[in-house]
């Protein structure tokens, strides 16, 4: 159940921030990625799993994505991070660095130095005339990792893996298109020689 955007305390000891005038004025288009209506609870290593920890996990992934432009990660995390990344790129493309709201979001979501330059001056210009989605998500075969050994018996844990990438990255495509080798010299020579052989066989008949 989603909470309406009002300043009412829904849980004990938890007070929501009061609704000050939102910084951003012009509304943005829809995000061209699947957005679940219930946010996933992401497992946090040792830290108490709350909403802040979840945002931290997402922030780390978004930072890594802007820095490296492609990452292999757990499927559920990739699915969860994709709309955040789309929204951030959309803000950079539609509003630009001069917008107050965009600058504040980028400052929080990309704490590493130099990444705001990368987002605004490297990634955003790719999509100035290209429609969304700005990211791609692919599914890889699941991995199993050794967890522990008990009485010489190995216990594994299986993880679904996904590849999240920003469009226009310099790497080769995740799903490679089947390439033809007919144009190569050796193949051409073989083809011609076979054709010639066929011709001679026909003449003999």
């Amino acid at each position, binding site marked *: 159940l989603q909470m*309406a955007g009002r300043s009412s305390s829904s849980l004990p*000891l938890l*007070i929501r*921030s009061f609704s000050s005038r939102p910084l951003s004025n*012009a509304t*943005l288009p829809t995000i061209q990625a699947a957005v679940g209506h219930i946010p996933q609870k992401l497992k946090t290593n040792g830290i108490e799993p709350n*909403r802040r920890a979840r945002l931290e996990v997402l922030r780390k992934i978004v930072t890594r994505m802007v820095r490296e432009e492609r990452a292999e990660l757990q499927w559920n995390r990739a699915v969860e991070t994709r709309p955040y990344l789309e929204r951030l790129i959309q803000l950079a493309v539609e509003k630009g*660095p001069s917008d107050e709201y965009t600058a504040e979001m980028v400052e929080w979501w990309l704490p590493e130095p130099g990444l705001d330059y990368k987002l605004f001056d490297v990634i955003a210009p790719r999509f*100035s005339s290209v*429609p969304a989605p700005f990211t791609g998500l692919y599914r890889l075969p699941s991995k199993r990792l050794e967890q522990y050994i008990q009485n010489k018996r190995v216990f594994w844990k299986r993880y679904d893996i996904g590849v999240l990438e920003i469009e226009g990255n310099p790497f080769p495509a995740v799903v490679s298109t089947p390439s033809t080798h007919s144009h190569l010299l050796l193949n051409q020579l073989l083809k011609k020689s076979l054709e010639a052989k066929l011709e001679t066989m026909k003449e003999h008949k």
Partner: protein
Amino acid sequence: GMRAVVSAARRAATAAAAAPTSGGQSAVAGKKCAGESTALRQRAKALRHIDEFPEIYPDFVQSPVWNRRVPLREQLERADMLERRMQLDVPEFYVGSIVAVTTTAQYLGAKEHRFVGICIRREKPGLLHQFTLRNVIDGQGVEVMYELYNPTIKKIETLKLEKRLDSDLSYLIDAHPEFSTFDPHMEPVAHPAGTPVPVNQLKVKLRPPPWTRRWEVMGPAGVANAWEDATPWYKRKFHKTKVNDYEKYDLIAAYRTGSTLEHELKVEEEMQEFERQRHAAGLTRRRIFRSAAAAK
């Protein structure tokens, strides 16, 4: 450190670049930044899209609860809302504007009742949309909630069109009475068409605590010295208070509750089509789709 310097330098460079040296140059710069070549932006331009649509027409914006966004119900409600807006002139007003509402009153001699107050909140989507006016009458603070599409409302007038630093002025209940007192017979202040709606930078002074809500925790922008005015007991309690200021960075939570450009354009198109049909029928010239800040 370095990142802040880079950001500041970039912002300065962008501001310098965007400074209007000539109309053409700034237009080109704006175009590149906004990605105007996309079809959606072109459609927005064709429809004369209002950027402040969620502020001017909060009743036409979808429900903040994701699961309550039912397209059929919204479409049916919008038809009724547009019909009502053709009968009753609903002026543009924001939270912080001074509004006068005249409702039918069965047992009064004049058969109508007029209430003047400052709009402190606007809630609910669709036909349920309501706004609350606050005033101090004979030393008693009074808040009246009106449902915008209530048929017993005879007239709504915006006496003073302005915004405040917050989108919710509930803290006025704990402020000194002079901040909520408005003359019931005040004359309307004309807003020159084409000029942006002014933002009143007033910071309200709260009465001595205790208050109805913990204003000192996430002090609203329009309150002066909320933390300083709080008592030491509340300041000690702050250690145990779970303050979630980080929620504003959750982009997708904001996306789930907020509006989308596609929906706004669809509604604007419906409004304009409805207006065109009614004007063509010749019965009325009333306009629904308008903005005080837009140039004529």
